[in-house]
């Protein structure tokens, strides 16, 4: 399995959003949103608080209703729905305090049909903590455990909602390296963040310009 998780994703997949709209709590958050992300590319979603970054990511993961337009993974696995091809790491860590770190990883690996967990835990420097109950973890350690899900089963699209929250500097660097690897393998990453991650192959999408729901997409290549 851990070999398979190193395989490349189909190189021609593209995540396409066409005049996407989102309505939450009766208010239009954004609408007419168009973007495309190709395999090996990251889309960095920025914008002020409440602009709709989290809403967009949850729409892609199938967790918020698409109020208009469409979103699809062209060239992805036709047998699977879009949410089944995504890893979503949101504001909530989805951890159970009564389970140990190892049990948590084992569960998600099994549920997502993945393989060995040892490597994933090591990648996020959690192997020393493997036997500890989640209740004992600090905020950043919890976050790292949530992030191991990305490595437990291979899925082409990563949806990361402020993934660096609570991480120390070393962990941020580690996460960025993992993201680069995923991109190099032909994966797609959509990340909402307020922090500059310095990814090489990234476009950026700015949501919620003051005027209203309109959004801009621009090509960019930060250092």
């Amino acid at each position, binding site marked *: 399995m851990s070999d398979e998780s190193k395989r490349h994703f189909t190189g021609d997949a593209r995540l396409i959003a066409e005049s996407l709209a989102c309505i939450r709590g009766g208010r239009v958050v954004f609408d007419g949103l168009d973007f495309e992300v190709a395999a090996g590319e990251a889309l960095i979603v920025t914008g002020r608080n409440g602009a709709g970054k989290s809403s967009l990511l949850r729409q892609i993961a199938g967790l918020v209703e698409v109020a208009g337009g469409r979103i699809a993974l062209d060239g992805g696995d036709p047998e699977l729905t879009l949410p089944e091809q995504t890893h979503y790491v949101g504001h909530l860590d989805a951890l159970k305090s*009564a389970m140990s770190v190892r049990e948590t990883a084992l569960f998600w690996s099994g549920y997502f049909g993945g393989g060995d967990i040892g490597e994933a835990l090591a990648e996020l420097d959690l192997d*020393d*903590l*493997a*036997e*500890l*109950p989640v*209740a004992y973890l600090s905020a950043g350690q919890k976050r790292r455990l949530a992030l191991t899900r990305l490595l437990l089963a291979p899925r082409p699209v990563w949806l990361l909602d402020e993934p660096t929250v609570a991480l120390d500097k070393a962990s941020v660097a580690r996460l960025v390296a993992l993201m680069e690897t995923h991109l190099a393998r032909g994966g797609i990453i959509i990340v909402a963040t307020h922090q500059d991650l310095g990814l090489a192959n990234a476009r950026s999408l700015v949501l919620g310009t003051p005027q209203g729901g309109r959004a801009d997409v621009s090509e960019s290549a930060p250092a």
Partner: protein
Amino acid sequence: MAGMSELTASQRFQAFANPARFMALSDRLLPFCTGATALLLAAGLYLSLFASPPDYQQGETVRIMYIHVPSAWLAMFGYMVMAGASAVALVFRHPLADIGAKSAAPIGAAFTFLALVTGSLWGRPMWGTWWVWDARLTSMLILLFLYLGYMALWATIEEPVRAGRAAAVLALVGSINVPIIHYSVVWWNTLHQPASVFRIDGPAIATSMLMPLLIMALGFTLFFMTLLLVRMRAEILRRRVRVLRLARTEG
């Protein structure tokens, strides 16, 4: 950088997980306790089952008394030990008190169960039923529930310090029940026997039956103490293992 005069936290923590003096003391005490328990119980059983006379009213069934009454006493005694230790644990934060309270609970619960069962067995010939909902029996059932609740609380809260404090609060609040059990026969007219040993005007029970009863009671008490020591030692060892394991996972 550390305060010079004080213990460092890790030293204090070692002291916490390692009540060495108790271990040494209990190690020397245990053989005597075990021996005395065996002697007293053997003597008590012989006296109560063979040497004492059958009751003129109850016949041979009266022999249940020699088990029933001491276990009922120890059920209550056990709770008092537990509540007392809990109070010490809450006020003085002494780790041994915590361990003592936790270790006393299952023993007390077992004696409560024994009192309930023997009482029930005795009730069948005496009252014509296994169980009635009178005040003595009900308050005794509550005592069992309190014990079980106490143990359940320990079992569900993962962290020993937190679990110990929460359980101590519960034990203290529940201690109200003990006087209720004792005085239930006075406050309400129940089917159950009124007190006949611990009375202001002396025991109202024949010496031929009182002697074996007292010996059995003493034997049961020593048995309780022995079990308590064993369980406390086991708990201390378990905590040591836990500390070692935690120390191994990351500094």
